[in-house]
């Protein structure tokens, strides 16, 4: 978390130092090249367009955070050998899972809000054009969905696997694979159909900014997956034998 926020601050200080000259550079860009480089319809000369580039970094860092948090919080009781303590208390297991998921939710929201506040403050500091706070809000909204998706995937994986080592390895593989696939799609658009399997491609910043909404299909897919993995978490946590 601290590293994350630190990296965030670093980003903006770097932005402060070089933002202007980069903006100048981007002005000379022909549209055709931008398309190849995956910048699409983003107008990178504006603060908004420039900010959208950072969106990928947010995805990466919050993705790591969400998937690991989801995994660890579900898997840790047995690892810490505190399962015998917690699961014999007079509460239903589903209640424990609920409490844990709420904790994840709060944690994720705090991270999201931190990013939001930092974004708004720092962007406005360097913004010379019209305010873009509403667009930032939209981007943070899709970021939150993305976070929730990876957190639920992490929790689901933890509920399905027997020990924390396997769970974190599997979650890490899922995240890395999703990221690599999204990078491959960027590179080679003929495999665009793979975008359904990588959340990194669900809400591309350019789309969100251009349309001002989230693509309904991907919104639905996200909600479906979040529901599915949450259900898996509840179901398998209820079923599993507690071993220490």
């Amino acid at each position, binding site marked *: 978390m601290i590293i994350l926020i630190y*990296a965030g601050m670093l980003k903006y200080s770097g932005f402060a130092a070089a933002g202007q000259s980069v903006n100048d550079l981007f002005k000379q860009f022909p549209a055709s090249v931008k398309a190849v480089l995956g910048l699409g319809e983003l107008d990178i000369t504006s603060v908004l367009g420039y900010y959208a580039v950072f969106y990928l970094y947010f995805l990466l860092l919050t993705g790591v955070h969400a998937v690991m948090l989801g995994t*660890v919080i579900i898997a840790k009781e047995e690892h810490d050998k505190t399962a015998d303590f917690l699961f014999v208390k007079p509460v239903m297991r589903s209640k424990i899972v609920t409490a844990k998921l709420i904790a994840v939710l709060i944690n994720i929201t705090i991270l999201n809000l931190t990013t939001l506040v930092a974004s708004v403050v720092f962007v406005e500091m360097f913004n010379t054009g019209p305010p873009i706070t509403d667009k930032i809000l939209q981007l943070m909204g899709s970021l939150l969905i993305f976070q929730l998706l990876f957190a639920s995937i992490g929790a689901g994986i933890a509920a399905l696997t027997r020990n924390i080592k396997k769970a974190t390895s599997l979650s890490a593989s899922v995240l890395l694979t999703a990221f*690599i696939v999204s990078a491959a799609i960027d590179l080679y658009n003929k495999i665009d159909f793979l975008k359904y399997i990588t959340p990194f491609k669900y809400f591309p910043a350019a789309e969100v900014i251009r349309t001002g909404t989230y693509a309904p299909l991907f919104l639905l897919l996200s909600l479906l997956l979040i529901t599915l993995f949450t259900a898996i978490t509840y179901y398998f946590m209820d079923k599993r034998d507690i071993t220490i």
Partner: protein
Amino acid sequence: MNIFAQELKMSAISMIYWTTALILLVFVFMFMYPPISKDIAVFESILNNFPISLRRALGITTLDLSEVLGFYGFIFVYILLIGSVYAMKSGISVLSEEIRSKTADFLLVKPVSRSTIVNAKILSVLTNLGIQNILFITLSCLIVNAYKQDSLDAAALVLINASLIQVQLFFVALGLFLSVVIKKIKTVLPITLGVVFAFFVIQLLNQSLDDPKLAYITPFAYFDVGQIIQNSSYDFSFLVTNFVIITVLTVLTYLIYQRQDIPSL
């Protein structure tokens, strides 16, 4: 020797798994190379007309994506990313393993000194990395070679591939250091991913901002592929930086571990 053998036995499967992932990555990406190179060739002339400062800002300074080596250099950053995650994971887990699985009371009461233990454990990590890199370099050179059109700068290809282990050593050293500094490490991968991705994002940032100071912060910037292809050599100052950081972190690891209290169960 017995500790070394035991460590290797315990980590072999993970090493094979990660090495397979690396090679698979090269294979899949290179599979996309022929169609992409055709697409890119169209724009190549436009790109080449750009001022150098602009191209640097885009991270495509000297990388010619239509050339097999340029393309390989472009995807190599993902190889570095995965390889670094593995390296850091190994670095963090190898010394903290005894405390995490509570076997310190077994190993550390044996008639061996702590530095013997650290030696054996680091050696096992290095051996894994060595095997991984030999396998990876051999296979990736074969794969890249299969896609070459006319000539291929073999020296540059080897230099690019050899930068993997150097970045990995950075993360091993960092992992070792963190594992003796952070008191209670319960799970390895969350810290690993957090740290490696933080450095990775700094590198992405460095690519778009090209701030010379920023480049020293992240090892991903130490071995610039474009520059390697152009000069067939490494940047000396980064090479030294990397070496110094690795040495300092490793020495600190030995010193701290030597005097560390092993928490009771």
